[in-house]
């Protein structure tokens, strides 16, 4: 355990280091004054945003994999992505341009869409039985497919400028955000991750077997409900800040599990840290690789994360029982 705590602390350090390295790389050849402007008003918020979103997605992914006891689960599996996407698309198509607490209508609609969809999927899952995993997954998949179809329909009738905005959002976009949104979002995500961490010993037993967990004195339904609500909430926050960034929530928890084992007391904080680092790096790559243009960060997460994950899988596959 001590080793785990030490690793935990040193990783907090390494996150800051990678953050600094990314910043220095950005500013190797620039004059001081605009440099500062760029650094404080564009780069720092952006890097912080990437860290918040990455941590939220990775922690939510780890939690949902435990709750659904399914290694294929990710934060979007229960329909959050399509719900948020539908909200965002509607906002773009309707051409709304008011703001709510400094947030664009896209973000507000995306958040509402995400929360609404999760509620819908949860309700359907409940009707099919007491936290019946298969029912919940099927409800998620079907709702996802249905909402995606509506998004496709809306896109096919949209004008080209709207189309571009929507597509860019759907591919994940860590654009500029003001400090208030960052503080609020970061606060929500941090509280959420701490809450999930508190539940992590119980998540261990539940991910092993919910019935056994009950006979070990764990209030399984309550833990499942709390963990589900918290992970859905931080995912919705992340999505409304940045659009749909895929792959982080699936690949980061698995990589951490392959390297450090499935104990959620390590897995959750480490996933959050690695998720934050991964997305910061991926975003930096997205900004630099085709400069001055920018790639959607979702493209980079999949292109970098995919091969990296396969490499880990091949090297450490003996540790993983679900491959048998």
């Amino acid at each position: 355990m001590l080793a785990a705590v030490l690793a935990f602390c040193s990783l907090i350090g390494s996150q800051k280091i990678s953050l600094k390295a990314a910043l220095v790389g950005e500013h190797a050849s620039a004059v001081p004054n605009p440099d500062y402007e760029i650094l404080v008003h564009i780069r720092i918020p952006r890097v912080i945003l990437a860290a918040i979103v990455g941590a939220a997605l990775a922690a939510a992914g780890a939690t949902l994999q435990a709750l659904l006891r399914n290694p294929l689960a990710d934060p979007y599996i229960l329909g959050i992505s399509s719900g948020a996407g539908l909200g965002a698309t509607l906002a773009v198509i309707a051409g709304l341009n008011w703001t709510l607490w400094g947030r664009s209508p896209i973000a507000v609609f995306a958040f509402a869409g995400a929360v609404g969809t999760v509620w819908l999927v949860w309700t359907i899952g409940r009707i099919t039985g007491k936290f019946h995993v298969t029912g919940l997954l099927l409800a998620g998949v079907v709702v996802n497919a249905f909402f995606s179809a509506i998004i496709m329909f809306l896109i096919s009738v949209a004008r080209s400028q709207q189309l571009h905005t929507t597509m860019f959002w759907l591919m994940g976009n860590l654009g500029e955000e003001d400090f208030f949104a960052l503080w609020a979002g970061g606060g929500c995500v941090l509280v959420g991750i701490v809450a999930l961490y508190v539940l992590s010993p119980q998540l261990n037993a539940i991910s092993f077997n919910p019935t056994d967990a009950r006979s070990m004195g764990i209030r399984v339904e309550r833990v499942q409900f709390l963990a589900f609500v918290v992970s859905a909430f931080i995912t919705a926050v992340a999505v409304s800040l940045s659009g749909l960034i895929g792959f982080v929530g699936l690949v980061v928890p698995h990589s951490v599990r392959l390297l450090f084992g499935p104990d959620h007391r390590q897995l959750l904080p480490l996933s959050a840290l690695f998720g934050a680092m991964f997305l910061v790096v991926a975003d930096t790559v997205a900004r630099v690789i085709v400069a001055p243009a920018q790639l959607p960060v979702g493209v980079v997460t999949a292109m970098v994360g995919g091969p990296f994950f396969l490499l880990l899988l091949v090297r450490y596959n003996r540790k993983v029982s679900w491959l048998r």
Partner: protein
Amino acid sequence: MSPSVQMQKVCFAYERSRPVLRDVSLTIPSGTFLAVIGPNGAGKSTLINLIAGLLMPQSGTVSIDGTAVRSYRPADLARKIALVRQEYVPVFGFSVAEMVLMARTAYYGPLGFEGKADRERAAKALEMTDTAQFTSRPLASLSAGERQRVFIARALAQDTPILLMDEPTTFLDIRHQVEVYDLLKTIQINESRTIIAITQDVNLAAQYCDQALLLRSASDTEATTQLSQGGSGLCQYRMGPAHEILNAEYIEEAFGVGVFAGQVGHGHFFLPLGRMAKDAISDSTPPAKEQA
């Protein structure tokens, strides 16, 4: 001896029209090794789940150490009862040590980490089940028999006076079956724990258990009651010392299958004889072909 588990007039049904357990009243004294035997669907697992508080009876009460199961807090009940089912491989690659420590979750401090006492309990449980050499191995890498011993170690680490076993030896070969029963018997004697085990193996039960509970399907007994027109009707179960309950007549009655009973030393053994079994054919009815 003080009663450890008591059931009073317990009725349970998953669907209203089809009762699984009807009016079950029994007392399991502490420190006994009870075998629960009966045909598939008779309600053996239901009975175990009622004792473990995973199901609640529609009527009647189940109590442990004199207190009704429904009034226990989950964490307190987990200090009374541990449950072992058939072994399986979990979805994620937990190691033996991580799994056995999981049993201590109900005892963890507010920070969610195990203390020294928890690790000592887990280490002792691993030692008792002779699985200490697997500590850091992933569960998936063990054989089925080894894994079942680890599941028993987890139940021991939970440090409860009562152990419930739901068919702990079903897919094991005879050597591993015997190892599990030897282990359970040792635990019963050395640690004076109460063990309640569902089993399909009447012979192992006859050799190892002190008490036996023979359950019949509730729908069967209902049919028999109607046929016999008896006033009180037949009881769904028989319970008593294993050597009294496990006899050919009662087993035939419960399973509806012919049984040959023999004796070895103090215990009996039972050989089921179906219609086409060699020995059944040679001594009773001649085969169908000769009749024609």
